[in-house]
């Protein structure tokens, strides 16, 4: 494994026993896990190729306990890694050998559902889907729906700014939360937002969302609830080429239609899904689109007609519109199974997460095919086509020596390709440790320095989740230094009027 983490600090390791005693004074005995067998359950998140035992696991269940742990960590100068459900695909919750793993799983209560104001206050350990389930009977739901929604926690969703298949129309986590409560390093607490929409002042809630546990520990989230659309219909569209499928996506968007979901699978992904569990996908297609239209019934029917016509014009070989809820879910079955389906042939896979300008799709997929040949590995692609978020699934065998390194190198090449065409390293999975060392392909040192200065405003000693997101940790004192220049220059060319 090529990942280098900050070297464990001897002073922290030496004080481990004292730290554990102090933690046991804050938390019940069973909420401090210090034995190896118990800590094994926390040694990795869903990026399983990197594993590390934490220094100790703390499982607080009240906000004052979180504050006390954070105050203790600051006092003893110990690192802290917050963890939700441990479903991060980028290693955001990977433990540190000299850090407390702060597991928020006991914060699993929905505190308040306010239908009048269409919001809910929930603890961070509540599973994403549990929110929608709790309000379904009243016709509401929480819109962001990452694939792991049955397990992933809302606190983790905020930390990663999670998306899902519906985010082109309904937005990401950042567009669907109203308030946060966070505990800062040192134990201070701030509440941001509430049941109201925007407020003046710096948008620290927006900043916290997607900050990957580096700025504070989330202890409460107020989410927006939306009324469930009256109806939804799916379209299953197959194309003989990737270009034709991509062209159809562009036509749909250019016509002013924003579907609830718009997903694409390439040939290898279609066939893997169909082999895993037959769901009627045409296995001879080069690209498959699943287009979901939701809203008022007459509008949905109207748009199903328009999109079908566009697909015909774009050369679709299969055009099927769902006539029942069962059929709509059937269209999704293969797509929803695509990760385990690829896993079944892998036997292991690495899921990448670049976003590209949609218009470059065919070119990028061709590039990925070429890279696959060069690295000697197979790849299947699923794609949130509406918003340009590409998930190449790289197949490898962890038991074959050298395969992990090959997969990592292939993945890095894919992400560099995404950046080269105007895209980004990660659309929804986060940087974590996985893409940390690639940040330089997208950002200059000045860009990264400014981001780290923001980190310094929250955590000047780099105690909170260090080693994630930023390729090099720079001391805050050094980052704060001003290099004053230009004072003597009257900049004569600058127009003044």
């Amino acid at each position, binding site marked *: 494994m090529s990942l280098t983490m900050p070297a464990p600090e001897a002073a922290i390791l030496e004080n481990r026993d004292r730290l554990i005693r102090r933690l046991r004074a804050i938390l019940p005995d069973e909420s401090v896990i210090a034995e190896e067998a118990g800590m094994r359950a926390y040694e990795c998140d869903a990026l399983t190729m990197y594993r590390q035992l934490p220094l100790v696991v703390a499982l607080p269940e009240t906000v004052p306990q979180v504050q006390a742990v954070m105050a203790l960590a600051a006092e003893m100068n110990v690192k802290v890694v917050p963890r939700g459900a441990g479903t991060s695909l980028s290693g955001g919750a990977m433990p540190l050998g000299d850090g407390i793993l702060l597991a928020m799983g006991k914060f699993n209560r929905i505190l308040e559902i*306010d239908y*009048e*104001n*269409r919001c809910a206050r929930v603890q961070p350990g509540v599973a994403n889907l549990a929110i929608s389930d709790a309000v379904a009977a009243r016709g509401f739901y929480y819109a962001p729906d990452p694939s792991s929604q049955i397990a992933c926690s809302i606190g983790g969703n905020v930390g990663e*700014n999670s*998306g899902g298949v519906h*985010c*082109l129309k309904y*937005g990401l986590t*950042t567009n669907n939360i109203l308030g946060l409560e966070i505990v800062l390093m040192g134990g201070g607490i*701030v509440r*941001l937002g509430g*049941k*109201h929409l*925007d*407020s*003046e*002042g*710096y*948008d620290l*809630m*927006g*900043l916290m*969302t*997607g900050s990957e546990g580096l700025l504070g520990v989330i202890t409460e989230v107020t989410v927006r609830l939306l*009324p469930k659309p009256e109806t939804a219909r799916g379209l299953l569209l197959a194309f003989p080429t990737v270009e034709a499928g991509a062209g159809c996506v*562009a036509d749909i968007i250019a016509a*002013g*239609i924003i579907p609830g979901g718009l997903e694409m699978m390439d040939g290898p992904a279609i066939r893997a899904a169909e082999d895993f569990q037959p769901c009627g996908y045409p296995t001879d297609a080069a690209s498959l689109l699943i287009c979901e239209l939701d809203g*008022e*019934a*007459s*509008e949905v029917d*109207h748009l199903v007609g328009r999109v079908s016509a566009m697909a015909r014009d774009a050369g679709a070989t299969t055009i099927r519109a769902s006539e029942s809820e069962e059929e709509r879910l059937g269209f999704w079955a293969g797509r929803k199974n695509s990760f385990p389906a690829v896993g079944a042939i892998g036997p292991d896979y690495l899921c990448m997460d670049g*976003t590209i*300008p949609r218009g470059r799709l065919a070119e990028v997929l061709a590039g990925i095919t070429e890279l696959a040949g060069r690295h000697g590995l197979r790849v299947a692609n699923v794609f949130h086509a*509406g*918003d340009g*978020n590409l998930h190449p699934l790289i197949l490898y065998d962890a038991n074959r020596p050298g395969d992990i390194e090959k997969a990592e190198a292939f993945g890095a090449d894919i992400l560099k390709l995404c950046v080269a065409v*105007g895209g*980004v390293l*990660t*659309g929804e999975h*986060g*940087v974590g440790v996985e*893409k940390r060392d690639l*940040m330089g392909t*997208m950002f200059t040192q000045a860009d990264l320095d*400014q*981001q780290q200065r923001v980190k310094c*405003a929250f955590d000047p000693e780099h105690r909170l989740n260090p080693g994630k997101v930023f390729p090099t940790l720079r001391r805050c004192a050094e980052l704060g230094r001003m290099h*004053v*220049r*230009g*004072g*003597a*220059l009257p900049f004569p060319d*600058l*127009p*003044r009027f």
Partner: protein
Amino acid sequence: MEELAPRDEAELEEAIAWAVAREVPLAVEGEGSKRGFGHVVEAGRRLTTAAMRGVSLYEPAELVLTAGAGTPLREIQGLLDQQGQQLAFEPADYGAILGGPAGRGTLGGAVAINASGPRRIRAGAARDHVLGFRAVSGRGEPFKSGGRVMKNVTGYDLSKLMAGSHGTLGVMSEITVKVLPRPETEETVVFRGLDDAAAVALMTRASGLPTEVSGFAHAPDEGGRTGLRLEGPAVSVAGRRESLLKHFGGEAEVLADAASRAFWEEVRDVRMLAGRGEQLWRLSVAPADGAAVAARLAQAVLPVAGRLFDWAGGLLWLALEAGRHGAAVREGLAGHAACVRAPEAVRAAEPVFHPQPPALAALSRRVKESFDPKRILNPGRMGEGL
């Protein structure tokens, strides 16, 4: 005041580096249409983004547009119009709101105040539409964040921080935004004669229905007009209109296209309150509480000269006669209250923006310092220390 008007990022960097070296505070603005909003900045020079203008990228099929921060909104809107697209966050015309000439304002200015109009409840505010930007910090260093794609979690989302920062963190040179299709048709169903409480109750019930509504506003004038906006394909708008009428009874008037647009422009630009009172306050509250908040404030013997509810009750505009009202407006308020328009003397005497609890205020100051340690950019515009 002498004005600096850099034409590109290099000149912007040069200008700010000069100001940092000389410790000259800068009043940062675009066309100056919102100069009257916020605290008065004690500046040595004015820095305008107006010369950094022009659309450098517009790809309608990708829903993306990049422009210089000083690009006038009217220019961008004109361009989008030709492709049947729009800035879905509906930035208000602050020229009109603040009593200046109408039709002014830049993209950078709209982002700097995190502008949002009646469609906020569905489509979000400016913050939800900025995909990326380039800026020069108060350290005189250029930096960027985000990109040009719809979905991006690479690094901290500094776009959110820039939106609503009133030019106190960095001066943006270039901004990339998400643009969206303009609806094929729109209609507004107007219910007449409702008092505040009944109107907010109706809007609360309507916003819990699956019927997609893209604007909920209540203007107490003319006996009370409560408008619900429907946007989309004609067939769907008609279907939703019928379902609303069935739900809330037939006593309603329907405004079609141009009339509907005019109604929402009036709401967006708070024209219902134009010329009323000395001050204009903007309260962001839990939507269902909107009417109760307005009633409580009226009981607090505030000299209310007019009110307007948007966001289904979640946004309350209040026109107030002369006086110092900050404390009374904010007392016990679960939400935020900002004074958008008031004479300089009033803005000098009391906080324009909602005061923050000490821990949050301290954190905000540290964020300011991380971008602008010498307090060069719009110092004090958002309040003490920012």
